[in-house]
């Protein structure tokens, strides 16, 4: 029993970070119907950003995250304006954006490999190897901080969407793009901001990845596969779904890893993907596609 609770703790810690990673992806899908295949590549880019900041100035990766947020926001907004208006009017918008972001993923990986090489990196703040205990349980400090940072960012995101004028515009666009235009939401501006937010969240998640896992450029394929299964499970475009899906699957995969073997834990994500597509294709909190 004690062991099971320990597994739940570790799974939840990891799930919080997955939730942060998936939230950026699901916001982008919700607002723009863009499945951003390059999201995980930008997470790795965020990890490199934090790594070099840490290596050159000694800045703690958690503080590095605060630097990554605005930098990646601007990067995302600029990237959106440069690339997406070209395909926006296309009758094959969805296919085009999949190709576009797929290409972006390859390019980002290629550039990172060229400039940063393919060796494993990891930031090493002092808390990376620490853990604190309560009762008979232990909590790795790094994962606890990462969860905390994820929760803070997700709460900020939720507050932005719920209470700000622009946040209303984002939610309106997610629910019905045409209706949003009709009531005067500038959807181009909302899309730019959303892309910026998605990218900022990728950058922040990268900062956390930098001390949680050893990373290298091609690592992103593994991440994006997991993230896509998470947002499909939660229901594409549903933030709540992404968070619940992330924590749920992380806990299950922690169990599989502990009792069946670590090799099998990624299977949880793909297995869940298969089952959800068979049983409830719109995901846990998604809606049937409207025609």
């Amino acid at each position, binding site marked *: 029993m004690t062991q099971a609770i320990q597994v739940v703790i570790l799974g939840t810690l990891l799930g919080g970070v997955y939730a942060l990673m998936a939230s950026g992806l699901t916001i982008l899908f919700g607002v723009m119907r863009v499945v951003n295949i390059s999201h995980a590549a930008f997470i790795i880019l965020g990890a490199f950003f934090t790594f070099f900041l840490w290596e050159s100035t000694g800045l703690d990766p958690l503080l590095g995250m605060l630097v990554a947020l605005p930098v990646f926001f601007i990067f995302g907004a600029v990237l959106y304006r440069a690339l997406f208006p070209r395909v926006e009017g296309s009758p094959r918008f969805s296919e085009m954006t999949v190709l576009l972001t797929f290409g972006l993923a390859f390019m980002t990986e290629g550039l990172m490999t060229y400039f940063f090489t393919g060796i494993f990196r990891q930031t090493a703040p002092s808390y990376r190897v620490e853990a604190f205990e309560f009762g008979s349980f232990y909590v790795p400090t790094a994962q606890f901080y990462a969860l905390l940072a994820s929760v803070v960012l997700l709460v900020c995101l939720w507050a932005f969407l719920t209470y700000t004028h622009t946040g209303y515009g984002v939610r309106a666009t997610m629910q019905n793009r045409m209706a949003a235009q009709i*009531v*005067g939401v500038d959807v181009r501006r909302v899309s730019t901001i959303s892309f910026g937010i998605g990218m900022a969240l990728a950058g922040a998640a990268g900062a956390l990845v930098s001390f949680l896992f050893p990373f290298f450029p091609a690592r992103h394929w593994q991440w994006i596969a997991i993230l896509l299964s998470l947002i499909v499970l939660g229901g594409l475009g549903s933030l709540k779904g992404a968070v619940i899906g992330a924590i749920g699957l992380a806990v299950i995969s922690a169990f599989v890893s502990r009792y069946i073997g670590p090799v099998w834990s990624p299977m949880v994500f793909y297995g869940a993907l298969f089952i959800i597509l068979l049983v409830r294709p719109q995901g846990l909190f998604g809606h049937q596609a409207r025609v």
Partner: protein
Amino acid sequence: MALLELRGIRAGYGIGPDIVTDVSLDVEAGRTHCLIGPNGAGKSTLLKVIAGLLPPRAGTVVFDGQPLTGRRPDRVLAGGVCFVPQDRNLFPEMTVKENLVMGAYLVRDRAVINNRMERVVEMFPILAERSHQVAQTLSGGEQQQLSLARALMIEPKVMMIDEPSLGLAPQVATQIFDVIKRLGADMGMTLLLVEQNVRMGLAVSDWSFVLDLGSKRFEGPADAILDDPRIRDLYLGRLAERRERPT
């Protein structure tokens, strides 16, 4: 000078053919206008062009002396031209109240928004009862009322309403048209209506434009147009016959 002037509008979607080939028409202040014509005549497309949702391939839209052509939808709306599309286009997961607040997205003053909401809800009492209900749980008629109410939140000068009776039971459609009549005749709002149920549409209108195959064929006072032989022969033949057939 008319309040809203369309000159030589040509429009279509993507790389597809022209849906609207050449339309010029004048919308006069304070009048209710009805656009009629068979399916595919380009009625809805024309409204989308005016709303700024579809940039025209040629032609100009002038509103109140200001060119609207090529403006973003939110700028067109800010100018006072609003659009109620045919599939209602509500925010399904927001409550009735939140939908109404979204209608005044361009208005930042909370007091003004609350004030308008009170007035709008007076016109649609059912919305007051449903104010905390999520939009997707409303009936078709209630959704249409919410759609109209949301458009009124911006206090538009011109309201374009696309197929308000679509998918509604006859009784409910009658209620909706009562409201439209009140907006036009009693409140003096300028309306541009597209309606498949031609008789219902014309009954609340002052003026009518007849569209076919993307261009304007004819226009005239709404009460006389059904009796015009050209209209009967060309576009409404079957409809007029049905009206005369004893039931």
